[in-house]
C-alpha cells in the first residue's frame, strides 16, 4: 500500500470518527426523549371562542394587555414590525358604506390549520382539543407557517428574550402565536383576554358541548368565521362582523 493511500485512509477514518463524536450526542438526546407525555387534552372537547364585535370598542386594548401580561410578552423592540403580537386589535371600515367596527384578531385555532400542514418538522401542531400550538423544542424557525397563515396570527421572535413566564416558554428564532392561554385552560380557567374584556365581548368554551355558553350562543345568533371561504373551520367565531 502506498504512503499516500495509507495516509488518506487514516484521514478518512479520523474524519468519520470525528463526525460520529459530533453527531452522536444529538442522536442520543433525541432517542432519550421518549414518547411525549399526554398533555391531558381530549378530543371529546373542542375549545372555541366567540367574539361579539358589536361590543368591542375601538381604542380599548384590555385583551391585548392581559395577553402580554399572562404570556410574558414584555420585550421592547427597536422595530415595532419585529415585535410579537399574539393578539391585536384591528379597526375595520366598510369601503362602501363607511360602517366601522373593531375586533381582536388572534390565532383562529382552525380545525384544518394551514400552519400545521406546512410545518416541515411537525412543530406546529393541533392538540386533541383543537388548540393549535408550536412546540418550542422542534421549531427550527423557517417561518413557513407564517407564510401559510391566512390571519397573520403568528410572530417570529427576532431577538433574545429574558424574564419569561416559566409556564409559557418562548424563544429566540422560534415562531409563536396565541395558545388560548393553554396553561390556564388546562387548569380549568378561561384565556386571559376573555377574563380581561371589560364589555364581556368574548365567550370561551367547548364547541362540542351543546350546553356550553358558547354553543348556546352560536345556536341563537348569526356568527361568522373569518375567511370562511378557505374551509378551515375556525375555532374563533365573530358576531356582528
Amino acid at each position: 500500500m502506498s504512503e499516500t493511500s495509507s495516509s488518506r485512509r487514516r484521514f478518512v477514518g479520523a474524519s468519520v470518527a470525528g463526525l460520529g463524536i459530533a453527531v452522536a450526542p444529538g442522536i442520543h438526546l433525541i432517542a432519550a426523549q421518549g414518547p411525549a407525555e399526554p398533555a391531558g387534552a381530549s378530543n371529546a372537547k373542542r375549545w372555541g371562542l366567540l367574539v361579539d364585535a358589536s361590543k368591542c370598542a375601538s381604542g380599548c386594548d384590555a385583551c391585548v394587555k392581559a395577553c402580554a401580561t399572562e404570556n410574558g410578552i414584555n420585550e421592547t423592540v427597536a422595530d415595532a414590525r419585529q415585535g410579537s403580537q399574539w393578539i391585536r386589535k384591528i379597526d375595520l371600515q366598510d369601503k362602501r358604506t363607511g360602517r366601522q367596527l373593531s375586533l381582536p384578531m388572534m390565532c383562529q385555532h382552525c380545525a384544518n390549520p394551514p400552519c400545521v400542514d406546512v410545518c416541515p418538522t411537525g412543530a406546529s401542531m393541533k392538540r386533541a382539543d383543537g388548540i393549535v400550538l408550536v412546540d418550542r423544542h422542534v421549531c427550527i424557525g423557517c417561518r413557513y407557517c407564517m407564510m401559510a397563515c391566512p390571519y397573520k396570527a403568528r410572530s417570529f421572535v427576532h431577538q433574545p428574550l429574558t424574564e419569561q413566564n416559566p409556564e409559557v416558554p418562548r424563544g429566540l428564532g422560534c415562531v409563536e402565536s396565541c395558545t388560548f392561554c393553554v396553561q390556564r385552560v388546562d387548569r380549568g380557567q378561561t384565556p386571559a383576554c376573555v377574563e380581561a374584556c371589560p364589555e364581556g365581548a368574548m365567550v370561551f368554551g367547548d364547541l362540542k358541548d351543546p350546553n356550553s355558553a358558547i354553543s348556546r350562543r352560536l345556536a341563537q345568533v348569526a356568527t361568522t368565521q373569518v375567511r370562511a371561504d378557505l374551509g378551515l373551520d375556525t375555532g374563533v367565531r365573530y358576531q356582528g362582523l
Partner: protein
Amino acid sequence: MQLVPYSRGEERFFYTLAALGGLVTLIGLASALYMEIHGHAVTGMNNQIVWGLPHVFAIFLIVAASGVLNVASIGSVFGKVLYKSRAPLSGLLCLAMLAGGLTVLMLDLGRPDRIIVAATHYNFSSVFAWNVFLYSGMFSIVAVYLWTLMERRMNAYSKPAGFAAFIWRLILTTGTGSIFGFLVARQAYQSAILAPMFIIMSFAWGLAAFMVVQKAMFAWNGLTLHPALRNRMKNLLGIFVAATLYFVAVYHLTNLYFAKQVAFERFILVDGGIFPALFWGGWFLVGTVLPLAILYTPGLLAMRGAVMVASILVILGAFCQLYVFIIGGQAFPLEIFPGLAAASSFGDGMVGQYSPSLPEFLLGLGGIGIAFTITTIGVRVFHFLPQDDLAKLEAAGHVLE
C-alpha cells in the same frame, strides 16, 4: 487522480480565485453567526416580510442548480452529442449551486443549530419536508451520475443515471415551485402554474449560469467555442427565456382576469414602488427583452462576448424576478377581511416595508461564494473542460462551417 500541471501564473490565478471564493464564503458564514447571536432583529425581515434577501439568493441557486443539469440531460437522456461532453461540468455546477443555496436556506433559519431536528422530524404533509428529501436525493443521484460519467467501467450506466437525475430534477423544481403554490391564503401564490413556471425558469437560469462558467473556462484555456456550437446553445437559451416570458405572462394575465386579484396585480405591475420598477426594468427589460435582442439580432450577436452578456443579463433578471415574487408577494397586504379597509398596530391593510440589511445580503452572497469555490476547485481537480470532438459532432449531423 493526476492533476494537469498548471503554469506558475495559472497556479497563482487558481489559488487567487479559490481564496476569493473562500473569503466570500467565510464572510457569509460570519454574517450567519452574527444573525444567530443577535437574532433576526439585525436583518430587515419582520413579521410581515418573513422571507427576505437570503431566500432570493437561496431559491435562485436551488432553481438554477436544477436547471444547470439540463445540459447533461440533453446529452444523456436525449442523446445530443454536443451536450454529452458538457455533462460532467453540468453535474458539478448542479452540486455546487445546490450546496450554496441550501447552506443559505439553512443558515437563515431562526434556529440553524436545530438542523438535526429538521433531519429527524418529518411532517409528510409539508412541501418543505418533501423538499428536504428531494434536495438530499438530488445530491446522491447527481453524485452517482457523475461517477458513471467519469469512471470508464461505469459509463454504460450513465444513461439510466442521467435519466433518473432528469426525472428527479423535474420533481425537485416542482417541489420548489409548490412551496409557494401550496400557500392557500396569499394573493401572490396559491397557483398551480408556479410549479411548471419554476421548471422553465430553472432551464433559463441554469443554462445562463452554465454559459457564463463555460465561457470563463474556455477563456482560461485560451479556447473559443466553435461558432456553430455557440449558436445552438444561445438559441436554446433564447427559447428558455422566451418560454419563461410566456409563463410569467400567463400567470399575470390569469390574475388580471380575476376581480379579486386585480388589486394585487396593480400593486406588482403599476403602483407598488420598487416592485413594478424591478419587474419591468429588471426582469422584463434587462432580464428578458435585452437578452432576446442580443441573442437574435445578428449585429448584436456578432459583438465580442455577446452571449456572455446575454447570460449575465438573464441572471440579473432572475434576481429581480425573485425579489418581486418573494418580497413583493409578501409586501402586498394580506386580505383577511375582503371588502373592508383594515388598520392595526401589526401592519394590517398596509404595504409591508422591507429594507435588506448588510448581514443578510452577505449571507446570500456567501451562498454564491460556496458555489463558486466548489466549482473552482472541482474544475481544477477533475477534467471538466468540455472537449468538443468536431469530427464526432459532424458525424452526428451537426453542420460546422
